[in-house]
Structure formats: C-alpha cells, structure tokens
C-alpha cells in the first residue's frame, strides 16, 4: 500500500518538476549544531538540523518556545557569538559555507543578501533616530548610491508597500508610529537591498489579527513580485497555513517533520505535529474539553535521551526512550523523524 502511494507521489512530484523546471536551490543547511555552554550544562539549542531553501519559496519553521527555530535563523545570519557558543555543520549559500566566514565578509551577506525581520518592531528600531535615518544606514552600508539617490529609492520602496505619506514617515521617529506601521517599515528595510533571502522571525506575533492579515498579505505580494525566498519562523500554525509552501516542524532542537504545507495539514504523521494540529481551539469543541498534548516543553539543558518527544508522546515505544529516530521518508518530499515509521509502517 505504501508503495503505491509513494509511486503516485513520485509521479506528482515529477509532473510538478516539469511544470517548474528551474527550481534553484539557494540555501542548504547541513547538520547544523548550535550549542551554548550554560551553568546548568550544555544547551543543544539546534542539534543536527538539515534543510534547504529554493528560490521563490516560503519555508516555515514552526515550533513552540525553545525549539531552536530562532537560534537556527541567528546561526544562518552569523549572529551567534562563537565562542562561547559552538556552531558546527554547513550553511551553504551560493558557493560558500557561511560557517567560519570572517566577520568582515559576513557583513556583505547579512543585511544585503540575507535580511531579517524581527518579532518586536518596537524594540528593533533605535528610538533616538528617525526611521529615515535608520533606512538610510542600510542603504549606505550596502548600496552604491549617493545620499539623494538613496533617499529616492527608500521613498520608492515605502511607496511600493503602500505606506501612506512616505515622505512624512521618513522624518518620523519610531514612537510616532503604530506597531503595524513599524513592522511594514522593517519589511521595507529588508527590501532596499533586494535580498535573496528574507528571514522573518515571528513577524506578526506582536500584532493584532486584523493588522496581521495586512502584513501577511503584504509579504505574500512581495514574494510573488520579487520571487525572493522567505524563511518564515512562527509558533502559529494558522499563519503557516496562510503563507507557507513547505513546513518544517521543530521540537527541542530537532526537525521532527518536513512536508509540503497542504500535505502537513491534511495528513500529519509525527505525533507532535498531529498534537499541535489538534490543539487548535475549534468551534466544535464548545462545551467539551479541548484535546491537548500531555506535559510541557522540556527545558533546553534537560532534553530527554532518545526521541526528545517521547515523554509526551502517546505512541512511544521502548526504543523511543533510547535511540534518537532517524528521518524516514514516507512520501516524496515528506520526511518524519519517528520510530513508528520504521520498516515502512505508516502510523
């Protein structure tokens, strides 16, 4: 049975490849390990994580607090101070490995080719400088424009994402704007250099639902327009369904499941992914108890042995407590790190 399904998927995948022949791989992360020494012990915040990003796609990294999604992003951008931390593995961007790159060279990548949108727009801007000044800093650091040219380009960028009265906004300070407006300015900041990759770390978590919808729409438009790639980091599966092409679910420093977005929501395989999806508060549950995942997320210095999810897993077997599961591939482009799939058994 699995064989038949696998074959069908392969065919579908082939057909998709024919439709979109030039899928260009833009970033490859292999066996990334980011460890921090702490008084409580070594924190294996990202532990042997591998994934890739194609041009023009939105890849979502989903997980709860402490799963390593933000640390993965910071590792890609070279924002982890090592030492004391340890960053190992490969982050291949273009034709070079970013790990171990000299800071001077990293500055040509960070903010120019790979940009980042942070969660809290209110704290990401410097309150002492105008928004225009801070946008200008980015332009001056990376683009060959003179001052008046740069200002023109910045205003154009602000216009392109529908910011009303961009000339006036340019001279305003962060405190004069709302969170939603600042988040849009931050998106504009990443666009000035037309980066290949935008990493968005919980870009809408601090925003209200109606503003979240506006910002997500904006990101989608831009992505269609520029064919840039986005790594979208969030804990909210609802927004993932709205914007992602592929999804990687993280738990306790590991990627537990990778799948195309439609498949992940239709048939999640890893018990953690399934648990997350059922934890959604549905209207049908009114008057009943909500389903939930037992226990709580382990702290970073006391990740369990074996599969890190096993103490909370309703389907755990003896093996789960001892040996970390490898990745199984039940369908083309869909991998799951769970012992339940051993020997081709699906669930």
């Amino acid at each position, binding site marked *: 049975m699995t064989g038949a399904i696998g074959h069908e998927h392969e065919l579908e995948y082939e057909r998709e490849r024919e439709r979109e022949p030039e899928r260009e791989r833009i970033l490859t992360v292999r066996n990334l390990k980011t460890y921090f020494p702490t008084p409580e012990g070594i924190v294996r915040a990202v532990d042997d994580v591998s994934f890739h990003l194609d041009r023009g796609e939105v890849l979502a990294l989903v997980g*709860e*607090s402490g799963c390593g999604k933000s640390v993965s992003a910071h590792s890609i951008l070279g924002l982890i101070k090592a030492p004391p931390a340890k960053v190992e593995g490969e982050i291949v961007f273009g034709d070079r490995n970013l790990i171990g790159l000299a800071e001077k060279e990293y500055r040509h990548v960070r903010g120019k080719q790979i940009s980042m949108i942070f969660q809290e727009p209110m704290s990401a801007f410097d309150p002492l400088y105008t928004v225009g000044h801070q946008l200008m800093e980015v332009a001056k650091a990376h683009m060959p424009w003179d001052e008046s040219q740069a200002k023109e380009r910045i205003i154009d960028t602000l216009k392109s994402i529908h910011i009303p009265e961009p000339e006036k906004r340019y001279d305003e300070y962060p405190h004069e704007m*709302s969170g*939603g*407006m600042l988040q849009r300015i931050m998106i504009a900041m990443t666009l000035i250099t037309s980066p290949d990759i935008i990493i968005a770390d919980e870009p809408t978590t601090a925003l*209200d*639902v*109606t*503003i*979240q*919808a*506006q910002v*997500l*729409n904006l990101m*989608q438009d831009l992505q269609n327009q520029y064919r840039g790639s986005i790594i979208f980091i969030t*804990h*909210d*599966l*609802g*927004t993932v*369904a*709205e*914007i*992602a092409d592929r999804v990687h679910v993280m738990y306790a420093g590991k990627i537990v499941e990778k799948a195309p*977005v*439609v498949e992940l*929501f239709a048939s999640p395989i890893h018990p953690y992914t399934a*648990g*997350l999806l059922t*934890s*959604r*508060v*549905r*209207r049908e*549950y*009114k008057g009943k*108890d*909500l*389903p*939930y*995942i037992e226990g*709580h*997320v382990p*702290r970073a210095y006391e990740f369990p042995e074996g599969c890190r999810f096993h103490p909370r897993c309703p389907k755990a077997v003896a093996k789960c407590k001892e040996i970390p599961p490898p990745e199984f591939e039940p369908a083309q482009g869909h991998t799951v790190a769970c012992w339940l799939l051993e020997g081709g058994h699906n669930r």
Partner: protein
Amino acid sequence: MKILSTRNLKKYFPIRSGVFLQVSGWVRALENVNTEIGQGETIGIVGESGCGKSTLGRTIVKIHEPTSGSITYCDPSGASHDISKGIDRRVEPVFRKDVQMIFQNPFDSLDPRMTIRDTIREPLQTHRLFAGRKATKAMDERVAELLMKVGLYPEYAQRYPHEFSGGQRQRIAIARSISVNPRLLICDEPTSALDVSVQSQIINLLRDIQRETNMALIFISHNLDVVHHMSDRIMVMYLGNVVESAPATELFDNPAHPYTQALMSAIPSWNPKDRKLGQVKLEGEPPSPINPPSGCPFHPRCPHRLANCSKVKPGMAEVSEGHFSACHLHRV
C-alpha cells in the same frame, strides 16, 4: 444570583505635560460600558490591543478608579453595594476575597523570591481564613490540596517560580487566585503567553474549576476562538466602546457589527487549500483613543459607512433576542 454589574462605566486617563504637569488631554479607555455577571456565568471580552478590554477588567476590580458611572457589587448575603466611589470599610474585605484576578504573564505575576507555598498562603493569611494554633498545618494542607487541584505535585510547594515552565506557573497563579474561594475570577489574557500545546490544558483547568465551584468568570482575550470556547456571552470592544454583545454561539453564527465581521474574517483558516487572508478587507489601523473619531468610533475603517456615521454615535440596538449591536446599519 447577580455578583457584579456596571452602568455607563467610564475611565479616562489624564495626559499630563508641561512643567506643572497640567492635564492636556485624556485617553478615553472606556466609554459607557454596561455589563452584568451572575453566578456560574462566563463573560468573554474580546478586541484588539488598546480597545480597553484590560482597563475594563482592572476597573471592575478597582485597580483603577472609574471616572464616572457605577459598579454595583452584591455580597454573598445578597446585599448590593455601590463600589464605584470607594468601598465601605466593612464591605471591602468581602469584596477583595470574592473577586480575584489572574494575569497574562505568569513570569511577572509571581514573586521570584517567594516559594510556591508562601505565594499561595499569602491570600489565606491576608483574609485570615485559618486561625488558632493549628493554622499553619491547616494552611499547608490547603496549599497541597490546591496544588493537586491545578494538576501539580504537593512537593512543589517548597520550590521557587523560576523552577517552573510557563504553563506550570499559570497553574500556580490559578491556585493562588482560587485559594480564597472567590465567586468571580477575572482572567486577563491567561493563555496568551503560553505555548499552543499548553494553552488547551489551562483552558480545560479553568473550566473544570468553574464547573466544580460555580464561580463566575470574566475572560479577556484577543483570541476569538478561545473566547468563544470559554464564554456564555461575548462583548466585542473597539476603542473603549462595546460595539456588540451576544451569546457566544449567536455572535459567531451571525456577527452583526461590521467590526466583528472584520475580526472574524481575519482569523486564519488553518487550511492551506483555502487561504483567506487575501479576502480580508479591513483597511487601516485603530485610531488613537486620545483623539477618537466623531460619531461611530469604527467609521473611518468601516466598509459600510453611511453619511450619518461620522456625525452620530450609534446606540445599542437589539438585532435578535439577547443580541445587541451598536451600528446605524441596523436602523436603516
């Protein structure tokens, strides 16, 4: 049995500026809010940041003094007291014990230097619920019982807050608030700071406790799904005003106010085959409560606005039984 009600409750915060800190303006956080809550009931309050939902919760427990309007509290014997201007010295201890609150961030709402035992004992001591020579022992037993009730081990009493996860801390905060058997619990975004997988545990716990004790809940959240699950009745707030109020299921089935409709359309679909954010038609952002728009507070963003909307503030109209909405459209 009624526990608490408000009539035309208003709260304005002064903005002071200049050398002499003269009042130069007002933040109109609450405008004429009417509510009523009785035993065993849950009222949900939902809205975006700055809509006044937390101010309402805090004004009801008298963390803030209301600017005008009245708050009526009925004590367990059934006697009513107007507590809006200050509480009678004899009524205050009863009220403080009867109305408890839990907060959004359990990392801030527990004292890091107090053990869990001391934290939960504090309200018991304040309200002198245990007296006599065996008081200490009786209180320790009560702490153990409360910890078990919220799903923690009694041994945890000796520990400090930093040793617990967010969900466990929120359980401790709940144990503290129910220690004095309140009749009304105000929950201000109790699950917003928690992980998704833990959120449901806390919601189930609150409902279990409510079923057991028949206490009333005022449940404040920006999350429509969570508010729907918890509440009997929902009030939707916008810029300090209650724009719609209805039984929970009715509100979701037939949202009447354009703002409620917009809020609901912005909830992600959780279905990648049926993405809906592109259909959200709400433009702009909520205006500042310092200088609110004339007429209907929602008119600058409303897709259905009429000429009248910028001039006259619409009153509450009953669109169906028990379902109220403040919009001129209902009178056309």
